[in-house]
């Protein structure tokens, strides 16, 4: 049971990153590689300020801000300098690797004497729950709050424009709106969310490592695709909800692969097979119909 709890907790935290990738990849149709840099940026900023005595809750807005700046950089490079989307992300991601090293060196550990959002005084309201359960509840709250804010935002005028830009950007232009600024806004939100995920992972792990961003884009894409494929037919399920479950499912797949006790070298193969199973389960009937 505890294993399921801690695995789901991972899924909640990483769901924030998945929301971000959902905005760029699904809504804007923008393959944004900045995430591999903005995720550890959030962690680096968090580790640096926490070691220097900052309140753990204050690092949340700070990480959001840092990620937003990273997204802004990619957006400006793409929109103002006309660099292709993929390359714009690569440029920012590459630069961020060095910036992260400048902020927090190659790794930075947060001592146990320093309180994180999971151990600070306000968590006392949760009673004597063990840390695993506290982490579970706090990360669930964070993931749900971000989801609700995002859902609300996507219904606003600005949010609708964002969705229109990905679907049909001529429409946006015809509404006398600048599709470039809308794209930049999307990248800002997406990377702010990725950095927030980095911030929470850093507090949960009590460490920043410069390599922690590697593979996060791939993770984000996988969760978005798993989530949206599985819930494709259930139109009442919001995309953010689907992505939320995609993230949890991904983490469960990894944990299952670990728990199978296969030789270490086969672990990734097992993960690949599990993902394939999940995707096949999601599109089984759809595929058959097409052929009929």
């Amino acid at each position: 049971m505890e294993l399921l709890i801690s695995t789901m907790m991972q899924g909640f935290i990483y769901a924030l990153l998945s929301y971000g990738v959902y905005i760029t990849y699904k809504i804007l149709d923008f393959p944004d590689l900045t995430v591999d840099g903005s995720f550890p940026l959030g962690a680096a900023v968090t580790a640096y300020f926490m070691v220097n005595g900052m309140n753990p809750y204050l690092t949340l807005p700070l990480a959001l801000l840092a990620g937003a700046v990273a997204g802004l950089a990619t957006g400006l490079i793409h929109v103002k300098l006309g660099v292709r989307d993929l390359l714009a992300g690569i440029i920012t991601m590459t630069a961020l690797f060095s910036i992260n090293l400048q902020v927090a060196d190659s790794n930075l550990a947060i001592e146990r004497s320093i309180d994180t959002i999971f151990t600070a005084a306000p968590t006392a309201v949760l009673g004597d729950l063990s840390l695993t359960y506290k982490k579970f509840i706090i990360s669930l709250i964070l993931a749900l709050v971000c989801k609700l804010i995002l859902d609300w935002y996507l219904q606003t005028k600005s949010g609708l424009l964002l969705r229109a830009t990905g679907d049909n950007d001529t429409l946006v232009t015809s509404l006398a709106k600048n599709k470039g600024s809308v794209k930049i806004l999307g990248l800002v939100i997406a990377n702010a969310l990725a950095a927030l995920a980095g911030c929470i992972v850093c507090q949960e792990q009590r460490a920043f490592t410069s390599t922690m961003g590697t593979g996060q884009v791939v993770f984000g894409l996988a969760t978005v695709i798993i989530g949206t494929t599985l819930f494709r037919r259930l139109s009442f399920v919001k995309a953010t909800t689907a992505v939320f479950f995609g993230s949890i499912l991904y983490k469960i797949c990894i944990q299952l692969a670990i728990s199978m006790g296969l030789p270490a070298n086969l672990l990734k193969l097992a993960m690949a097979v599990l993902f394939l199973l999940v995707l096949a389960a999601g599109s089984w009937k759809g595929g058959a119909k097409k052929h009929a």
Partner: protein
Amino acid sequence: MKKFFAVSLAAVMTGALLAGCGSSGSSEIPVIGISQYAQHESLDNCREGFLQGLAESGLVEGEDFVVEYQNAGADDNLNVQIAQSFSAKNVALMCAIATPAATACYAAAEDKDIPVIFTAVTDPVEAKLDSGNITGTSDKLPIAAQLELIRMLQPEAKTIGIIYTSSEPNSVSAIKEYEALAGEYGFTIESVGVTQQSEVVQAADTLIAKNVDCFSNLTDNNVVDVLLSVLEKTNEAGIPVYGSEIEQVKKGCVASAGIEYVSLGVKTGQMAAKILLGEASAADMPYETITEYETYVNADAMAEFGMTLPDEVAAGAIDVSAEAAQ
């Protein structure tokens, strides 16, 4: 149909996870969870040594303990989930091989009483692994001994070239120590930092162009993984390369004053045995740094550079050219 399939798959997966925790909780024999960060010869040696150390302390696998071994394949996400699965299963002891594994295990055991024992961690203080229910062994390089060895083998040498990964904490701290000590032995250090494996060979070209007298390696994973292609370049340029441990000398480095990872693992295993037997607790045992080191030479590689082994070095050196991989 699809929904049914999806739901039942989810149910089966959840069930499997739940079953996973149930089964290990009920077993009487203590479980040691070994989390190794990557597939790597030195780290494999650590693990083998660790099991040997347990055996030497009289513990029998299958009777006194069982091992759950996991390897993250250098994947940080996997590394964290492995540590959390050990914590959720309430293993009797976690053995973490390499710094990232140790950090993750220590974090996963935060409010539990699971002892963590690490090995192949260069700087436990820097990584904040020096207090709490945790102990282990450090694989800090004997850099002074290495400099002395180079001085004896190449009395004329002035500059030593070193390639390191700027994001590997072990490498960064080793470079600092090299720079601090080099002067005492009459060397200057030319270091080139890389960020990823593909840049290592370019860095080797840079150092060769700077006419360094020799290369010295760290335990830097990016460099060690492509050591053979670095050696190809340096052999062509006639520059000898010194390794940092036995496996590198087997691959064609001329010599090394290095620690031997099997013994490091054995020491770690013995510490773990004390914890399992209740003779000591991880919180009370300070971490240990191996102080004795061996001198490894590769006579074949030395001959290629026309180098001879001074008698005072030869006396204590171990020639590994017979075991060389090529």
